[in-house]
């Protein structure tokens, strides 16, 4: 069955440090892949998406993600984290419906 896996439940990072969140997918064809962010008490906001083409995708809030077919991965990165990036991050794929990973909680320390 198709799925996405986010191996890291919780990540703590210092403000100004870089951040990388892992996402692995299990899918036969090239999936449509997404990263969403959910701040406390808020709905999900789309950070970026990958359908095809350039494997490095730029998103909002300074985030980027790289699609690597050989590794079945779609990792999210940010070069310098701000305190406001503390949130929960979800990787998702869309074949005929949107399916989410379990999420990674990011804590930013001063």
């Amino acid at each position: 069955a198709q799925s996405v896996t986010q191996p890291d439940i919780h990540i703590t990072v210092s403000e100004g440090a870089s951040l990388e969140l892992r996402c692995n997918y299990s899918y036969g064809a090239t999936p449509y892949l997404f990263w969403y962010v959910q701040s406390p008490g808020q709905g999900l906001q789309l950070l970026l998406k990958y359908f095809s083409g350039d494997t490095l995708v730029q998103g909002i809030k300074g985030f980027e993600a790289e699609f690597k077919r050989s590794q079945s991965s779609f990792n999210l990165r940010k070069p310098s984290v701000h305190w406001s990036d503390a949130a929960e991050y979800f990787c998702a794929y869309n074949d005929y419906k949107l399916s989410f990973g379990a999420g990674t909680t990011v804590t930013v320390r001063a």
Partner: protein
Amino acid sequence: EAGVAQSPRYKIIEKRQSVAFWCNPISGHATLYWYQQILGQGPKLLIQFQNNGVVDDSQLPKDRFSAERLKGVDSTLKIQPAKLEDSAVYLCASTSAFDPYEQYFGPGTRLTVT
């Protein structure tokens, strides 16, 4: 552009009671989704509407959950009777015909069943 609206934001009920959630999608968005997000998990699709018709309700527990979108605009999700395991955040999302893959989410309704 106004976003997806949901109410109430919070609800506490006792088990076996009933509860209803309301969602108003972004104007003009024909597709509407209801998700259940249990603490520590990603959202799980409960039901998808296209206008006022159901596209997918395969993961909706139909013995206790029901949803409708009578006029193809706003929607109501009902639980009757509620169980403890229904405690979750219920998210509504909508998409437009021009970009069916970008879902816009509301803030959600946090349900606690005691």
